């Protein structure tokens, strides 16, 4: 009885599925359809459109051509912000990668209490960037923080108050960012290291290759996946840098630590110049566009190479 029933359905099902549109699936994914289309497509189109208008506090459609972009790139605030994001980005990325990788390598030496170390290295990541920013702001406070503390120990001309000087404030941000984020890099890299086949190590040892060279030239190229994940994580975080700076320096001293994301928020809230804010926002889309283009190129090249090989 049951046998017959199931067979009947089994025979029928494939044919039916081909003809039928799965309405339930469409209804189930309606939130996705609405969100992806309205937020990540329509909203972005509007952002770009408004960047060509002189919208003030409310959006309007009074087009002014490229005026907002001309102003954007001639404004020192934006220039400083762009320089900062490059500097901050490259610094954070390099230090984070190197430090995270070193931590992972050292963690991978059969050490005792590995889980204790891992817990310590990773806990800052559970904290918000606001908390991170405030904590580091106090530690680097010139009057009550590390500097004064060490001076009180007798080293009276000790100076370590990066946040209050224009030239050094951004290093303070980098340190706080590293503190919060390098544990993750370590965790992902460590996973990558452990994914490398033991045979590789044995082979390298037999060939007499020093450990550091094995890491640098054999193991790193083998953990591309982990590296890619870390890079992506870092890059997307860097472009939207906001909370940390907001809490730690508010863009100061002066305008020394302004960031593009802060520029956008400032223009749509305080300065009531939505047109200008949207021009800056459009610029923030460039890195993603770049990533997408690079990805497209890589995919085509790979496809072509495969074609040749075949």
């Amino acid at each position, binding site marked *: 009885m049951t046998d017959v029933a199931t067979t009947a359905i089994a025979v029928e099902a494939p044919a039916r599925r081909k003809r039928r549109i799965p309405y339930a699936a469409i209804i189930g994914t309606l939130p996705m359809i609405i969100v992806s289309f309205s937020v990540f497509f329509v909203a972005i189109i509007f952002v770009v459109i408004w960047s060509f208008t002189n919208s003030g506090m409310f959006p309007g459609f009074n087009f002014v051509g490229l005026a907002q972009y001309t102003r954007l790139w001639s404004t020192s605030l934006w220039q400083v912000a762009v320089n900062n994001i490059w500097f901050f980005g490259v610094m954070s990325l390099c230090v984070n990668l190197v430090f995270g990788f070193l931590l992972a390598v050292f963690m991978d030496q059969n050490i005792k209490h590995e889980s204790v170390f891992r817990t310590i290295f990773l806990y800052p990541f559970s904290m918000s960037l606001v908390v991170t920013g405030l904590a580091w702001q106090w530690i680097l406070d010139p*009057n009550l923080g590390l500097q004064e503390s060490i001076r009180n120990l007798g080293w009276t001309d000790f100076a370590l108050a990066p946040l209050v000087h224009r030239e050094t404030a951004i290093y303070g941000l980098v340190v706080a960012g590293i503190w919060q984020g390098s544990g993750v890099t370590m965790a992902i890299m460590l996973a990558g290291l452990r994914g490398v086949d033991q045979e590789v190590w044995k082979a390298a040892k037999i060939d007499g290759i020093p450990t550091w060279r094995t890491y640098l030239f054999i193991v790193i190229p083998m953990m591309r996946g982990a590296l890619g994940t870390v890079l992506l994580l870092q890059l997307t975080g860097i472009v939207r840098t906001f909370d940390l700076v907001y809490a730690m320096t508010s863009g*100061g001293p002066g305008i020394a630590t302004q960031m593009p994301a802060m520029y956008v928020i400032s223009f749509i809230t305080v300065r009531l110049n939505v047109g200008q804010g949207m021009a800056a926002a459009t610029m923030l889309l460039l890195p993603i566009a770049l990533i997408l283009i690079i990805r497209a190129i890589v995919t085509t090249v790979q496809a072509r190479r495969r074609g040749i090989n075949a």
Partner: protein
Amino acid sequence: MMKFTLATIAVATLLGGTAVKATDLEVIHWWTSPGESRAVNEFAKAFDNDGAGDHWVDNAIALGETARAAVMQRVAGGNPPGAAQFNPGRQYEELIKNNQLLDLTDLATKEGWDKIIRPATISDPCHIDGKWWCVPVNIHSNNWAWVSPAAFKTAGLEVPKTWDEYIADLPKLKDAGIIGFAAGGDGGGWQLNLAFGVIQTQDLGQANRDKLLKDKDQSIALGDGMKKAFTDFRTLKQYTDEGLPNRNWNDSTALVIQGKAALQIMGDWARGEFGAAGKVPDKDYVCWALPADHPLVTTSGDVIVFPKQGNPDVEAAQLRLASLLLSPKVQANFNNAKGSMPVRDDVDMSLADPCMLKGLSIIKDPANIQIDSNRWLTPDTQSAFNDLISQFWTDDSMTVEEAQQKYADILAAAQ
């Protein structure tokens, strides 16, 4: 999600039902320092106890630009507060333009605001083309310096009599470990820009300063007066401390109160801090009206706007508050606590201290009134000046000439 929406509607209906008896009126302001909190309490008390049963719902947001941004977002998001603080000028121009503010003209005509508010320059930013869009609640002047005799005493100096004497004393103060010039760099650098504005008036003279900001005069921007202003400003910078970036204005004032710093240029709202700390004028602190050779009072201060609500109960509460803000008793209590001058003459100011009396005597001559820069500059331009001034302040590699050129460029682009 649907459920939550329904829940909100249900809650809203419930609240709406009770609103007939008591209306909650949310007020956004940035009166968060001790002196300011005492002052705003006077408003809240008066509104809560006026017999109508309405409630002042306090929403204090630290820092003017943050508070104003919150108001703007709330309006743009269709969820405006019942009332909000602004500085008189162009900050709320977009709200008027986009028909977002409650028209107060009927109430103002009934109560004769144009007769009781003096001088007329105070009501101008609210009274536009015959219509009233806001209520001025006080007159503040930016042009004040707050001096600590204790700081000078520590350095073995007499309290200087003139601005030039003060400048001459700065190196000695520094040697004695005293902060010569107290300032803070929070909120995009508004404190620095305020101090610069005072020095600018001192170096340019009132007439040229007005021409510069009102007519956006390029030759003045690039002229010698501005050069001197930037040069003087850079001199002051040499006598500040490391704690400056990110510091609030009232924390800077606290340095003067504690005798750690010699002088701060700050509007007369700083007086409220001295009052809240129990300090006595002319003994514990000295106030100088600036510019030193010819003191002027600026028309800065605060106004309250009432965003449209579309609810008659709330609207009635808004109008009641508007009227209350101007009543002589509330004006006296509020301004005494805050250190500002009342916007009407018939207020009992028997509690006024020497500093306020000084201000009140200056304001008697309308020629001594200086229009605040907010009247002529949009928030966009004002923020651009904040950026420039704080950049110039922190970046010694920016020359005076470069700064002047940038200043002129911002003016040229200003709308």
